[in-house]
């Protein structure tokens, strides 16, 4: 969609959209002088608005966006990996699960590390 349509649908000011594109928070396809926004840009703009409402400032927003993108990249890869494992014969699947369990057991124990404060304890 064109910039005008995007501004309308996202209910953002043109200057705000411009600033977000400048900052690299939004990456519309650039075709010469015109920008082509897609559905994913629209929902990302909504996410940025929501982050602002949650109290994230301009410094924090790109950090959060980057971490969210990393999580999604990991989730996608994990999903692909799981479906690839799922497609294996049952014996192979059992083998992989057994191997994962052993790896988990052999990992150094982190229990001694202090637990991060829970959400509740920070609020009060």
């Amino acid at each position, binding site marked *: 969609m064109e910039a005008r349509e995007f501004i309308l649908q996202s209910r953002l000011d043109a200057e705000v959209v411009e600033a977000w594109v400048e900052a690299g928070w939004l990456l519309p396809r650039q075709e010469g002088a015109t920008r082509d926004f*897609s*559905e994913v840009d629209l*929902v*990302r703009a*909504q996410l940025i608005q929501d982050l602002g*409402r949650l*109290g994230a400032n301009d410094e924090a927003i790109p950090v959060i966006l980057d971490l969210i993108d990393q999580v999604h990249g990991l*989730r*996608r890869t994990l999903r692909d990996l799981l479906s690839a494992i799922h497609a294996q014969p049952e014996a192979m699947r059992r083998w992989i699960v057994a191997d994962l369990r052993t790896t988990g057991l052999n990992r150094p124990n982190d229990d001694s590390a202090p637990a991060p404060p829970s959400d509740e304890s920070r*609020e009060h």
Partner: protein
Amino acid sequence: MAADPYQTLGVKRDASQADIQKAYRRLAKKLHPDLNPGNKKAEEEFKNVSAAYDLLDDADKRARFDRGEIDASGAERPQQRYYRDFAEGAHSYASDSGFADFAGTDDILSEIFGRGGRSNLRMRGQDAHYRLELDFLDAVNGGKQQLTLPDKSVLDVTIPPGTRDGQVLRLRGKGHPGLGGGPPGDALIEVAVRPHPILTRKGDDIHVELPISLKDAVLGGKVQVPTPSGSVAMTIPKWANTGRVLRLKGKGVPRPDGTRGDELVTLKVMLPEMPDPELEKFVAQWQPARAGASRRATGV
């Protein structure tokens, strides 16, 4: 939505704007679908919390709601979709930097962790896929081959002895160049083995059907047998019939551990190609001890 927005946010009716914001933020952090991509149930709750906040955050709307001029239903968000609904697809925001350090591992699995991603990231190059046709003996014995690529450059490929049809050879670093200083991908070469006119392969063994003369079949003798490593002399025992299998130990396909499979020679007794009057005369005089014995043996 018809629930009381104060209840939804868990605040009193006389809560300050600051308290309302605090309550919203506390709930939204836990419920926002994009911050909790694995929690499908949070979505509906987040919608309600957001709608409640939309209404109460606006002092004017809140006052009108308190006076009963508007109800909570006007505040619903039109949005039904979230970033997470798109974020796992291939798009310009996709990031593999969460596991970029996996891609360097010297393992076939590292391929999984090298796809997509932003172009400004350091990325391992894509693997290039090629196909190489080999003669049967070149595949079995191994050796050097040259593969001409679409861009006319030539790739030297070492064929390990015992290479099978369909096997994929990996040439590390011979694929497409990496991005942003990343290492190049690998060249993956699928081998297609052309059949041999007489030798066939089953596992690590070579099978061959060897025609032998009637004389060798009856009296035994020495014959030359083709093997992947050249022809060898083999002794045929007396009374060797068609279908008898002789094993040439260690004359089959080389294995990675240095041993070799066997060659299994199936004998096939052949009469001379041209009619031989001498043989006919001889056989006419010959009286088998038990007529029809051979026919009975095969159950015909």
